[in-house]
């Protein structure tokens, strides 16, 4: 509980913003700037926040009803017709239900469709395992041509959505139900394929996406109190991954921890491990959900149960440092 008290102290007074709300607001702004932007939803426009666009530009908003496969196909057609479609629903329905539509038409056809999926990860909370997308990043990351992004705060969301509107090609952005503390400056710019060092350190690297970037920062503060210097990365551009930053971190710190609200297979942990294995082998600890589905609960209960608290990250950092070459397992 000391960790929780510490975290509360650290984040007290830090403003919070919701990535899905910032998506909705940015989309509404873009609607006024670019008449080619169109928005589609599958009966979740209040939750995904596309309703903000729908109120302002009803003639460019298409609700296809509870039909995610049709959502993706219709978005594809609008893209071929020269529009810039943003298609939104919950992450599990976008990446899961409509995966093959995304694969066959949008990714294979390299179509200019932006899939912005809300309610990613465990922090969906009480709706339970059926609604907690823990597989979406893996499902999107395996698709050729697909860009996969997970913003860690409001400014990053706004920058990513604006970037996606200007980029010609398919993009998947995962937003979240919960608000996150604001980390980036208001004028933050997104650059494809670039990760960011949000805290410098030399002994171990903590790499996160989404809410877990904030937990990594808190873990780094706790590690500092133990005399361990942790570098913290925000790898919000999951694909294409900033492999140079990952290799640099492996070289400089010799050990990495990855943290994500996702299965440990296929997402950030896999992406980082692939780079490290290919280019600069060092020990990696992957924190995430391990081959099980989620369940109902308050977000903090779920994060604790599945081992995604700052304390879990601290322990993973200690473990992975023990695994560095020349150090015996303890």
């Amino acid at each position: 509980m000391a960790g929780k008290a510490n975290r509360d102290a650290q984040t007290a007074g830090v403003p919070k913003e919701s990535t899905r709300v910032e998506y909705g607001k940015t989309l509404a702004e873009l609607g006024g700037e670019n008449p080619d932007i169109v928005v589609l939803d599958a009966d979740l426009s209040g939750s995904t926040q596309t309703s903000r666009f729908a109120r302002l530009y009803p003639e460019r908003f298409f609700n296809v009803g509870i039909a995610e496969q049709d959502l993706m196909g219709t978005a594809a057609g609008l893209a071929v017709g020269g529009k810039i479609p943003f298609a939104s629903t919950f992450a599990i329905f976008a990446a899961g239900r409509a995966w093959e539509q995304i694969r066959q038409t949008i990714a294979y056809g390299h179509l200019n469709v932006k899939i912005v999926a809300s309610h990613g990860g465990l922090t969906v909370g009480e709706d339970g395992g059926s609604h907690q997308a823990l597989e979406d990043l893996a499902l999107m990351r395996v698709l050729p041509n697909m860009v996969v992004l997970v913003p860690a705060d409001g400014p990053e969301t706004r920058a990513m959505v604006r970037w996606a509107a200007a980029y010609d090609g398919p993009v998947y952005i995962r937003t979240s139900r919960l608000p996150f503390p604001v980390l980036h400056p208001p004028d933050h710019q997104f650059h494809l394929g670039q990760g960011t060092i949000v805290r410098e350190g030399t002994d171990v690297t903590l790499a996160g996406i989404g809410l877990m970037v904030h937990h990594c920062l808190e873990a780094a503060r706790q590690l500092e109190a133990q005399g361990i210097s942790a570098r913290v990365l925000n790898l919000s551009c999951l694909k294409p991954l900033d492999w140079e930053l990952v290799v640099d971190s492996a070289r400089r710190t010799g050990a990495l921890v990855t943290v994500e609200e996702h299965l440990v297979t296929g997402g950030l942990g896999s992406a980082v491990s692939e780079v490290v294995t290919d280019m600069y082998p060092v020990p990696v600890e992957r924190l995430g959900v391990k081959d099980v589905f989620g369940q109902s609960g308050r977000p903090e209960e779920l994060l604790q149960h599945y081992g995604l608290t700052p304390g879990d990250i601290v322990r993973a950092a200690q473990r992975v440092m023990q695994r560095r070459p020349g150090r015996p397992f303890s």
Partner: protein
Amino acid sequence: MELIADPERLRGLSRQVRRDIVEMIYRAGSGHVGGSLSATDLLVTLFFAHLRHGNGREPRDYFVLSKGHAAPALYAVLARLGHFPPEELLSLRRFGSPLQGHPDSGWLAGVEVPTGSLGQGLSVANGLALAARLNGTGQRVYVLLGDGEVQEGQIWEAAMTAAHYRLGHLTALLDRNRLQIDGRTREVMRLEPLAEKWRAFGWQVVEVDGHDPAAILAGLRELEHDAGTPGILIAHTVKGKGVSIFEDQVKFHGVAPTTEEYEQAMKELTGG
């Protein structure tokens, strides 16, 4: 290009396209001969007699081959329209060929989106129709569906969307050849009453003989009278049409003809 209204010229073009299809698939050693031949008169009539190709002041209409396995028929039509030399048809399914086994927009201009996984083209056509409306271009959208294909649930999602958004400038052509890979549609998964289903979903339905160019043309024109209702042309066809040994044979869904079968097919298609 000039549209062709003369049914006899269209029949002659269909015979040429059928020869192309048989030749391509025979040379490739694989491909979907039955569903390509059943759709031939629909595609020839649509492309040579009806669809606007965007020449001069006319808008360019869109076409989506939702039953992507009929790619040989589409390729032959595009070649005979002059999109590429007919000799290139013989590269069907070969490594590096723009004529992929199923249509791929990344390889071949004239293909709007990749298809081949069934059930998705109607949604794409809806999106194109919505874009055309927003763009104010007056473009129409055509999509060719297989009959077995409408067993896919997404088709009915898209059918609702087209009616809900009053996509009167969208026309689906349904190649009702009554066969699918595993057998007759009525045995694998019953489709009837098919016209009533589409009407119940808010569509205008016209049923025609899908091998009669004049009837196809009249049906397409009739469906375009109502500007607020999407239309579907249910075209009754024979799978493998034009080659007696292929006609209405389940086996010829997706196999290449043997040398004897090929020779007989070419004789029938040349003599007719």
